[in-house]
């Protein structure tokens, strides 16, 4: 899965030569600056006092710096104009939703991927491609029926297949929905990895009399840690950043709704309160950014597994 970087080819590769000139470097630096400035503006604004924010542009903060964390306190614990609760409960919700919604699909997908790769049975290839093809289904297609299922159960005529469960005000529907929607991609990525494990190793374990469960626990999981980590990061970021599923299955209350839902609401109601809106937005992106910068290598590896032959 690792991308080979060749040191010797670096120097004399004419393609790279053709594309490397001072002009090229200027272009890359310009794009990098352009890409970074909007986020920087958000951060600077969130640190400025209210009157400064409305008085002039954030770039003036470098001329007369007057920065502090006041906005963060306000937005976390007090709310603000016409908003009764701060963001704190929503921040907690984001974490409380993301951790299980990352772990459940990870474990279930690893199991399914192992089953499809090593417990061969007739039709396992078909099952694999159906699961893979389910990535096609836009989440939007599943929302209405799934919401009805959670609130009303499933009935076939007068026969109740699944009784309605009262899940209002709990995380369960959000966890379930995220788990369901994540499985196709997760099974696909992990299957690619698990199917490539050395055959003789597996066969030796079978000869030794190990059950599939033992092989999965003591060989597959340890060897697949990098792939599991990649997907876990991917899924964590996906769940943390998701708006659609949360909006549909969590509503907008401080009991269940995550940060993204609250921010989308505030973007409307905080119209002019840029100092609070920017602080809230930065709070919501700081966790993904920490995850991203500290675990970037795994994250990239996960991306490449899907689109580049490793």
């Amino acid at each position: 899965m690792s991308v080979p970087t060749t040191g010797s080819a670096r120097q004399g590769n004419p393609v790279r030569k053709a594309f490397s000139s001072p002009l090229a470097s200027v272009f890359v630096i310009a794009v990098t600056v352009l890409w970074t400035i909007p986020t920087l503006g958000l951060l600077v604004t969130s640190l400025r006092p209210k009157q400064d924010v409305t008085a002039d542009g954030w770039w003036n903060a470098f001329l007369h710096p007057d920065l502090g964390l006041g906005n963060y306190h306000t937005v976390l614990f007090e709310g603000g104009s016409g908003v009764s609760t701060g963001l704190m409960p929503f921040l907690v919700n984001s974490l409380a939703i993301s951790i299980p919604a990352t772990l459940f699909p990870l474990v279930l997908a690893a199991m399914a991927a192992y089953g499809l790769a090593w417990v061969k049975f007739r039709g396992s290839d078909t099952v694999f491609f159906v699961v893979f093809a389910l990535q096609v289904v836009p989440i939007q297609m599943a929302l209405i029926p799934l919401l009805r299922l959670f609130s009303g159960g499933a009935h076939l005529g007068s026969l109740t297949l699944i009784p309605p469960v009262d899940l209002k005000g709990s995380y369960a529907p959000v966890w379930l929905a995220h788990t369901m929607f994540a499985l196709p991609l997760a099974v696909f990525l992990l299957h690619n990895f698990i199917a490539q494990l050395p055959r003789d190793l597996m066969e030796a374990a079978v000869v030794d009399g190990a059950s599939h469960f033992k092989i999965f626990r003591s060989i597959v999981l340890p060897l697949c840690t990098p792939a599991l980590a990649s997907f876990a990061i991917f899924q964590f970021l996906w769940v943390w950043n998701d708006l659609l599923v949360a909006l549909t299955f969590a509503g907008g209350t401080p009991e269940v709704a995550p940060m993204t839902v609250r921010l989308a609401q505030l973007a409307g109601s905080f119209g002019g309160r840029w100092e609070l809106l920017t602080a809230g937005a930065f709070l919501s992106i700081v966790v993904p950014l920490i995850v991203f910068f500290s675990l970037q290598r795994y994250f990239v590896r996960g991306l490449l597994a899907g689109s580049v032959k490793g």
Partner: protein
Amino acid sequence: MSVPDTPSSAAALAGGAWGDAVIKFGNSFGAVAGFLAILLLVFFVAGRARGRLARPLAIAVFLGPAVLLLLVGLVVPLLRTVYLSLRNDDGTRFVGGENYGWAFTTESVQEVLVNTLLWLVIAPLAATGLGLVLALLVDRMRGQAVYKSLIFMPMAISLVGASIIFKFVYESRGPGQSQIGLLSQLAVALGWDDPPNWMLSQPLNTFLLMAVMVWVQTGFAMVVLSAAIKAIPDEVTEAARLDGAGGVRLFWYVTVPMIRTTVVVVLTTVMITTLKAFDIVRTMTGGNFGTQVLANEMYSQSFVQFNTGRGGALAVILFLAVLPLVAYNIVQLRKERGVR
């Protein structure tokens, strides 16, 4: 939503918030612990099975949960949505293709479809094109990791967060006030006395919203393509060079063909993301001022106006639009697996 009766005694509020957090994390970790406990138990019991039962049991345990969840969560809802799209708005009467007729003949929905098509073509092409150029250029630079990281960074930011970041960039004020939005300030600096309210000027606003998607996706395209370029075997470039191919020709006749598959995969991946994403439009304009796209219209039809028929029809149209893209990706993938 309880409003504290004392005017915000921050300490008490914070105390309540911490208590609340403890309970919520308790729920969250309790669920994880329960899940793992059940799994361990099942593994333990099923692992003791021997003989003819062992294989079917293993298949059931490994594949059962995932298959069941996929059936309940995706397959059945998919069929139900198609069914709902053929019925009237509260699902009581069969109306055939009426909802689809409504989607393609209503002027407001036509505008939505045109916008979606624009998004689908422009944003992926811009992000992939720029990503490819950057991938080629960044490779020889010193400190390339830093540039890559910074350009890739928006990928980690939620589309809602990105929307707020750009809402602020596009913020505009009337003449006579100092501008606080970066874009307006730039316009003023370039000698435009009274820049327009960006979010209200059609059709420019749609393109400004697309810029957010390009900002988020370019880094992804760059990282993946850069890896693909690095994965080209040295022998290939070496051989071409011995045959006398120079820089640009080498690029066109060796590099491009070698990474063509990856370019297409990146392009389709960004397209699929673009097609499904509704966060940007929803957060920045709410779909007003002629910026509405299919994914957001579908959401508001279904969950704001409760027209399950129309919402279902729009979801099916969305699905049919994604289908060819993913089908192509699957064909590519099958080829690769065949090669293995």
